[in-house]
């Protein structure tokens, strides 16, 4: 096994990998940008090196700096996390040249899968069902119009280099096509340094369901069940659960087998995810391979008891998979809420800034994979993901009730978060019934929000108490003396006895 690993990422996923390293007696090495000098992943690492400006291209996306840092500190391997360089074939090639192990797939499947159109061509050839649409990215506006008419509306424009909902646009009618194309290209360029966009037929009432796979270097590929990822807002996943309340056992197994076939057909190695769109009749279509650890990997860990990051390290170190398909037996139910620095009461505007107050939930069946701490200043330069709150329950109902309990304990003040938004989702009858698809949140946002009159009264009382305190004394002094009064009681008892 490796002695030292460099983690070429930040935030909660860097923390996640650091924890796995520490549990394997591997020295975890963090890298950090100017904006991350005080970040949690730096605090929890054993070693940490500064790599440049806040701008990702100068730090977390800078292949040469990452490689140089790994060589300088003697790291034998690099874990890329997700995002940034996670699916960048150039990093993989540089690693190969420098004799550093890249913890992920080799460069060939990365190249095939990283470009979504080549992935579609490859999968179609391997007999994996794909969504109707273009097999190449769209060259110009003329071709756009032409191909769009062929595919038919509504349709999706997708970044060829994309993933994670960036550079993705839904187009209802032809008149929206051109502005959507421009925005998709601009976002794709800014996110992936590649503006190429292709067209896919839009599946009605779609479910996004993905299969986790693990592939070792000895030809063994297994799937670890599915993740229901249909709870999306603006094509971004916000809540995931496993098992999917929508799938039946037959479809689940069929998808697992197809995922293994898809991975095997491209010589995939290490942990990966095969994403599918499933229509209302439970017909499923290949969407993409995420050639990395997914944000939502923890829910699979919770039901299978398998530590996916440790598996990644073991596979990369050349170990064979320690279990076979029939030994994977998921237990219970797990879900994850992505706590984002966004204001759900103001159109989910990003909300970077200082966390002045933080209480995190804990206890049985609750896992908080977080990248923040009290006093931390969330930078505006990166993803708004603060933390992933994960629960496990014997049943879906228990996992939901536990999530509600955990959310009620989770308090973040100083910046806005999506916690109240999840509280809304977790009380919604359609969510409770498991009857939601990717349209759910858009529909939810049209409904009136819950209101608790008791909270309003408590707020007014709190304002009154604060005003009273401010009026009676200077701010703070009164409360302190009051506090002291209670502590003084023991002493008074003593004095009384002596007199």
């Amino acid at each position, binding site marked *: 096994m490796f002695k030292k690993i460099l983690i070429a990422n930040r935030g909660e996923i860097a923390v996640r990998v650091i924890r796995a390293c520490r549990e394997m007696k591997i020295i975890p090495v963090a890298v950090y940008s100017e904006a991350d000098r005080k970040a949690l992943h730096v605090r929890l690492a054993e070693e940490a090196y500064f790599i440049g400006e806040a701008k990702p291209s100068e730090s977390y996306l800078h292949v040469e700096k990452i490689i140089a840092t790994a060589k300088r500190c003697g790291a034998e391997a690099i874990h890329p996390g997700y995002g940034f360089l996670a699916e960048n074939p150039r990093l993989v090639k540089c690693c190969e040249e420098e004799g550093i192990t890249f913890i992920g797939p080799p460069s060939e499947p990365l190249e095939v899968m990283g470009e979504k159109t080549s992935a579609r061509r490859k999968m179609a050839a391997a007999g994996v069902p794909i969504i109707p649409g273009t097999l190449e990215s769209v060259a110009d506006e003329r071709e756009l119009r032409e191909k769009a008419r062929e595919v038919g509306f509504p349709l999706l424009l997708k970044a060829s280099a994309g993933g994670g909902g*960036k550079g993705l646009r839904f187009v209802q009618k032809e008149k929206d096509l051109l502005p959507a194309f421009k*925005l998709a290209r*601009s*976002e794709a360029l*800014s*996110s992936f340094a590649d503006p190429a966009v292709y067209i896919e037929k839009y599946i009605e009432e779609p479910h996004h369901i993905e299969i986790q796979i693990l592939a070792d270097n000895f030809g063994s590929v297994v799937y670890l069940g599915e993740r229901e990822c249909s709870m999306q807002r603006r094509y971004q996943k916000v809540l995931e659960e496993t098992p999917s309340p929508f799938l039946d056992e037959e479809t689940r197994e069929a998808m697992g087998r197809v995922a293994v076939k898809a991975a095997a057909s491209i010589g995939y190695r290490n942990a990966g995810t095969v994403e599918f769109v499933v229509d209302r009749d439970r017909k499923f279509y290949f969407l993409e391979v995420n050639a990395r650890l997914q944000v939502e990997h923890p829910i699979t860990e919770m039901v299978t008891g398998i530590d996916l990051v440790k598996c990644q390290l073991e596979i990369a170190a050349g170990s064979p998979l320690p279990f076979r398909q029939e030994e994977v037996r998921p237990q219970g139910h797990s879900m994850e809420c992505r706590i984002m*620095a966004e*204001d759900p*009461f*103001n159109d989910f*505007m*990003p*909300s*970077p*800034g200082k966390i002045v*107050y933080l*209480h995190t939930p804990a206890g049985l069946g609750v896992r908080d994979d977080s990248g923040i701490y009290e006093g931390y200043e969330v930078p*505006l*330069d*990166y*993803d*708004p993901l603060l933390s992933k709150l994960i629960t496990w329950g014997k049943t879906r109902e228990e996992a939901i009730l536990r999530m509600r309990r955990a*959310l*009620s304990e989770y*308090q973040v*003040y100083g910046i*806005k*978060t999506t*916690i*109240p938004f999840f*509280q809304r989702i977790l009380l919604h009858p359609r969510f409770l019934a498991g009857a939601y698809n990717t349209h759910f949140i858009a529909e939810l946002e049209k409904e009136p929000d819950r209101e*608790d009159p*008791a*909270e*309003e*009264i*408590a*707020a*007014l*009382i*709190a*304002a*009154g*108490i*604060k*005003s*009273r*305190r*401010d*009026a009676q004394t200077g*701010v*703070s002094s009164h*409360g302190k003396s*009051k*506090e002291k009064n209670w502590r003084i009681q023991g002493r008074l008892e003593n004095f009384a006895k002596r007199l």
Partner: protein
Amino acid sequence: MNFLFWLGQKEVKVSLEAVGDNLLRVSVGDTAHDVSAEFIGQEEILLNVDGRIFNVIVHSDSLSHSVFINGRLFRIEKRSALKILREEKGRQKKRDVKTTMPGRVVQVLAAPGDGVQEGQPVLVLEAMKMQNEIKAPQAGQLARVCFRAGEYVEAGSVLFTVE
């Protein structure tokens, strides 16, 4: 001790009376509650209202209390509702559009002097890897645009003004 607050457009009278050690009788409008309150730190209050528990954070300035309960923020004004209303009307003629988030201007979609519709995107602001269209809050003429593409914007900055 009596206070007059404004929440939303409502005026509410809140009166407090100490009735024992650590115990207050608090009336909100016409309803009275038994309340005990423990300050934890400067802004955090553990509130017990008729036995029910609330963990509250109160951040105050000269104009208002921002009260944070269960993930919700209540802005409780110390000023009169009338005054706020008057200010809002004043604003409607000439409206500054501010940003609540810091970020980078990616694109400016309209120029000073242009006519804009309500809801029309005027510029695109990027923060935390997401691009957000900032829209005109009312129809009118764009009086000014304060930033150019590529510039950084701090929270609270005026982005543009619609007349």
